[in-house]
Structures are given as structure tokens and as C-alpha cells.
């Protein structure tokens, strides 16, 4: 593993930890508080704060998972370097697109 990936892997884990906790508290509070989907969307739509919060979440998760997948493929399969790079980068882009769509749907 390159030092860049090693540092990125740890940095993204550090970013995700508080975001996951905040997200869990948030959904529990929203459900307990009896908020409907409409009411939640009313709060998130147009909110730059929530956009940044979940945007960061998606980016960190995608990078973290991409590097992790690269390591697993390298260790557990006989694939050469190039297909491993393509698969892990492809997976990272896929997560960014899917996550980005979800964030867009609640923010825009």
C-alpha cells in the first residue's frame, strides 16, 4: 500500500466516525420525534449545511471503500495490478454517483 493510500484510508475513517454517530443520533431523534418524510425534506431542502454533511460522508465512504476493495482484491485474487485499479476506482466512482444522487434528492 502506498503511503498516500494509507494516510487517506485513516483520514477518511476519522472523518466518517463522527458523521456516522451524528447520522445515527439524527435518524433516531427524527423517528422518535414523529417527523414525517415531508417535514424532514422541508428541513433539508436548500440547506447548504446538510449538503456538506452528507456530501462529505459520501466522499469519505467512497474513498475508504475504494482503497479497502483494492487491498482485498490484491490479497484474495490473482488479478493483476491494472484490473484491480480499474475495479477499485470504478467502485469508488459508483459510490460517489449513487451517494451523490441520494444527497441531491434530499437537498435540491
Amino acid at each position, binding site marked *: *500500500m*502506498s*503511503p*498516500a*493510500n*494509507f*494516510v487517506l484510508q485513516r483520514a477518511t475513517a476519522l472523518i466518517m466516525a463522527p458523521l456516522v454517530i451524528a447520522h445515527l443520533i439524527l435518524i433516531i431523534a427524527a423517528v422518535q420525534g414523529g417527523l414525517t418524510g415531508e417535514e424532514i425534506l422541508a428541513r433539508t431542502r436548500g440547506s447548504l449545511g446538510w449538503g456538506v454533511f452528507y456530501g462529505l460522508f459520501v466522499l469519505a465512504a467512497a474513498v475508504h471503500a475504494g482503497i479497502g476493495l483494492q487491498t482485498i482484491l490484491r*490479497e484474495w485474487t490473482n488479478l493483476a495490478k491494472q484490473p484491480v485499479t480499474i475495479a477499485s476506482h470504478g467502485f469508488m466512482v459508483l459510490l460517489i454517483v449513487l451517494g451523490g444522487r441520494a444527497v441531491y434528492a434530499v437537498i435540491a
Partner: protein
Amino acid sequence: MTQQGADRPAPPSPAMLDVEIWRGGQEGHYEDFRVPRDENQTVLDVVTYVQRHLAPALAYRFACRVGMCGSCAMTVNGRPRWTCRTHVARVIEGGRMRIAPLRNLPVIRDLVTDMSTFFDKWQAARGRFVGTEGADAGVGHEPARVRPASPERREADAAIECINCAVCYAACDVVSWREDYLGPAALNRAWAAWNDVRDDDRTGVLRAVAVAGGCLNCHTHQSCTEHCPVALSPTHSIAGLKRASMQAWLRGELKS
């Protein structure tokens, strides 16, 4: 003096030990042997008995028989061990013992493995001392002062007693997954080298180990530490290398 023993029962025949030993190269099979059981017998004693009395062509390695040279490591009942210091009593399972060559190294014949990759990786991890170069090297230089209590000296001390037995290398799953992984022994050695403050190119050690297949690929399984017969902790050394590499990279020192 009274004559004794004329009608005493014959001494019991010695207990026997069932041993299976790997025969052949990479492809091969286990061969069964029965070896007299002896108190304080080591696994190496058993292999030596088989070679002297039952299978003269059996190939195996040993030299010192006292845990110094690191040449006698084998897989005993599934675990890598130094056989000259492993008592049969400690490892026997149901009166049986299965002895195989070390894992993660190509088998040459029977219990002998080809250790060249293992030693090549020591070189690749730059586990050797690099002194001040040039015609005047050392001339007129003050000898380096290394305080015994300095953190670097202590770290080097803790890692230095490796006997190159490759037990850790056989125990490490990452070695079995990636052929380019430098492995616990070479990285442990690199940590000792990096902690030598007299070394003229300490960053060179980090450049050698912070690569694909280097220290950053260690999963911290601790299997190496669990099995090392001389109780070293390659895991601890590798953690040190990870930290040092990460700091050096962030400072931009790893660009070659």
C-alpha cells in the same frame, strides 16, 4: 550380595510415537514412522532418529541444536516452530505428530525449503547498515555516542535478537496472500536499522519499506509475534515503521 532379577519381568518396551513426515517436494505425501518415545525428546531428535534409523535419505536442516542458528524450523502439528527447542511433550496430540516443511516457502525436498526469497526480502527492506561514504569515511569523525537508554537504542535492542528462522514468515497470512509482501522478519530488521542513529540514510529504510508489499500492508494480526520462538514482536516493529513512514511522507521526505 543377593542375586536379583533372575525372574524379574522384562522392562516394558519403550512407548512409541507415531510420526508422519512430509516426503517429496512441492508435491508429495506424508510417510508414517514409529519412533521410540523418550523423555525430554525434542522434535528435532525425532527427525534425526528417523533419518539415522528409518529413512536415511530424509532431507532436513539443522546446525546448532540450541536455538541459535535458526535453521531447524518446520511445521509441527500445523504450527511453525523451531524444532531443536520444541519438546515433543508440548506439541504431541493424541500420541501423534505431523511434521512438514515451513509454509510460504517453496519446498526443495522433504523438510528443506528454499529460503532465498526470505533472505532477498531482507535485502529489499534495506535491513543493513549504511555508513558515511567517501574516502575520508570515519577518519577524524567523532565516534557516535548512543546512549543505552535512548528510545532508539531501546527499540533497536528489542528487535535485534532475530535468528532468521522464518517461523514468523511461515505464520503470516499476508505473506501467503501476496508474494511481494516483505514479511515480518525483514520488516523487523528494517525497524532495527532505522533506529540506528549512526546510519547515514535512515530515510532510505523508510523508502524501502513504505512501498506496495511493504510495512503498510501488515494487518496487525500478530501471528508473527505469537509464533516467534525468541519472543520478538515484529508486529510492534512494523507499527513503528508505519508511524515513521506516515510522518516522513507527510513531511515530503519519501519522494525519491
